[in-house]
């Protein structure tokens, strides 16, 4: 078995206009390897090539040049798609169906037998907390609920590789937190997760490695820790220190030619605050 979940070599996509003239270079010479069991983040501004990369990996688009492999097989291979779960950037779902019906439809596309289908559908609907609206057509769902059912459909086949395009888009902070917890759960289950987002905090919280794209070109790749750490600076977080002690530490640092950048009280994130308020009431 290959050690990588995804590999690309010189992957390039140029969109052409009606007359087949080159119009936009969406992705240029992407060389990327994502290991099995990794949580990998694709970052970049809008139009940077993240979604194009995902579509190329799923076989929805064909590369202009270069090659890509997913779970050891060329992109778009049908047998490999049995092991992939995909959540698109928006919930493109059949709005006339109920949650149960749409999950049943997608489960049938994997030839999952009836009894197992029912078991998985029940489990997923409960997991995404839509049990109370399972019989309601999707056109009556809020954006966040649609996102949750979209996630459920991506997991219906218990995938080895989960591709999530903007997974927290449309979710409230609680939903975002649950999504991130779920991604960490995938990590514990040794599933590979490709997370595509422009919400940097989300990616920072859960990803092992990230790649940053700009204008279709991979700018940088590496572990979050390596990319974010400032090796020429040190941060202490200390509790129960008096003003005198602080002044003493400050004097000591200055005596050693150290340059103090800031002395401040650490703050929690707004998301942590929101979640703690909502969960305690």
């Amino acid at each position, binding site marked *: 078995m290959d050690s990588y979940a995804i590999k690309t070599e010189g992957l390039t996509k140029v969109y052409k206009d009606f007359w087949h003239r080159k119009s936009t270079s969406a992705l240029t010479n992407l060389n990327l390897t994502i290991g099995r069991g990794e949580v990998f983040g694709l970052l970049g501004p809008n139009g940077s090539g993240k979604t194009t990369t995902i579509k190329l990996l*799923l076989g929805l688009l064909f590369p202009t040049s270069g090659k890509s492999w997913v779970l050891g097989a060329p992109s778009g291979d049908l047998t490999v798609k049995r092991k992939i779960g995909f959540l*698109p950037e928006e919930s493109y*779902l059949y709005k006339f169906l109920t949650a149960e019906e749409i999950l049943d*439809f*997608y489960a049938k596309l*994997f030839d999952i037998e009836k009894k197992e289908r029912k078991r998985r559908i029940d489990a997923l609907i409960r997991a995404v907390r839509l049990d109370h609206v399972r019989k309601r057509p999707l056109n009556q769902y809020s954006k966040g609920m649609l996102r949750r059912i979209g996630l459920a*459909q991506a997991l219906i086949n218990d995938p080895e590789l989960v591709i999530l395009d903007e997974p927290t888009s449309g979710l409230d902070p609680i939903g975002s937190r649950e999504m991130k917890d779920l991604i960490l759960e995938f990590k514990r289950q040794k599933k590979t997760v490709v997370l595509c987002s422009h919400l940097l905090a989300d990616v920072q919280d859960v990803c092992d490695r990230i790649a940053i794209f700009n204008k279709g070109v991979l700018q940088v790749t590496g572990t979050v820790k390596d990319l974010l750490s400032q090796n020429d600076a040190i941060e202490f977080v200390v509790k129960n220190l008096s003003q005198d002690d602080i002044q003493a530490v400050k004097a000591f640092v200055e005596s050693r030619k150290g340059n103090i950048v800031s002395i401040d009280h650490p703050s929690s994130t707004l998301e942590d605050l929101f979640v703690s308020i909502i969960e305690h009431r």
Partner: protein
Amino acid sequence: MIRAIAIHTLRESLRKKTLHVLIGLSIFIMAVLPAVPTTDEPDARVKMILVVFFQVVVLLCITGVILLSATSLPHEIEDKTIYGILSKPVSRIRIVVGKIIGFTLLSAILLVVLGLFNLVSLQYRASDLPEEYRGIVKARSEFVASHFSIQGTVHHARQGIGWIAGGRSGVARWQFSHIKKPPEHASGFEVEGNLKIESSRGFAGTIPLMVRVENEISGRGKTEVISANVDKPFILKIDPAIVQENTTLNITAFPVLATDYLGVTPMDVKVFLIQKGFLSNYGKAVLLTFLKFVLIVIIAVMGSTYLSAPVSIVAAFVVFLCGHILDFIKDFSLLMQDHHAHEHAIPGVLKTPNMFLIYMDYLIKKPLEWICFIFPDFKRFDSLKFLLKGINIPFETVGVSFGYTAVYAGVCLFLSAMILKKREFF
């Protein structure tokens, strides 16, 4: 997998308002038919029920099916719901096949439900038809005369009709040389005549007519005097003992009275072999219509693999329309091809070849020829012409139409697979 897509497609279609409106309109039209005035002919109402179903209702349903099948795939692509399917282990051709089966199921449901409604209405209306008009609710094989002659004196001839006077001065004789031994399931032969009659006496619309049916080989026969009506066909049952093997039948007729006259042509008398019941024939007619639905569904779905929704709808309707007028298109192109075919044809007027003619050739004639070659012939699925005459639809017709649809479907599926294989989903 294909089944899942087919059922999903069917379920989605059944929820579309377009379909609800067209089905509602169809039912409304069938429901108001009894209130529509007809001619005085006893079978006019039955004919109207058949015509309205097989032309108006079927056209409405086909319109609905085209609107849905031509837009299904483009809408999936436009709404991006196709991502959900393509990211699963489903090949692109399976999506197309699933869609086609879904719309085929929809067509079958429409035809069965509306067809049953129509059949009940038809049987109810036909139950009180007089015997001479009940041909429309039978399933018969038609035999036309292989030879026709008037023995004796032709009193006068007018507009292609030979008139004979009564009293044996002239006898009309129709010969049917290819009558086959009736199969076991058939219930026998009957003669149907649509003769013209006149009289020089005080005439109440009927004359006594001597009709003889005779087996030329065995010599067995039967002579009857019937009362021929001026505006009604006559029906004469043939004794099964007369036709027991392949044979030649002779039918002769003349007015009994010298004051009466009979106008005859070769096509006035026909022999019919009464096959299985009307229900089986009606079923075959619905099956032929169903094949028409299947063909247009396949064409519409194929078009939608490449075209946008509105263009796909227009393309499907153009194919459907052209498929009904292929004879006309063929005639038109032939007229342009042969300079001497018609004195008013444009190439006939312009005697010498010039640039205009060459352009006409490439811009009009050649495309028309290609249309005749490529477009499906929808007229071959026309079952109404059989039902209106109470003619049994031969199994060969159904079989050939089925084969035609299968071959066309195969080609369309291949093209769809080729188109979709190359298609990208942005």
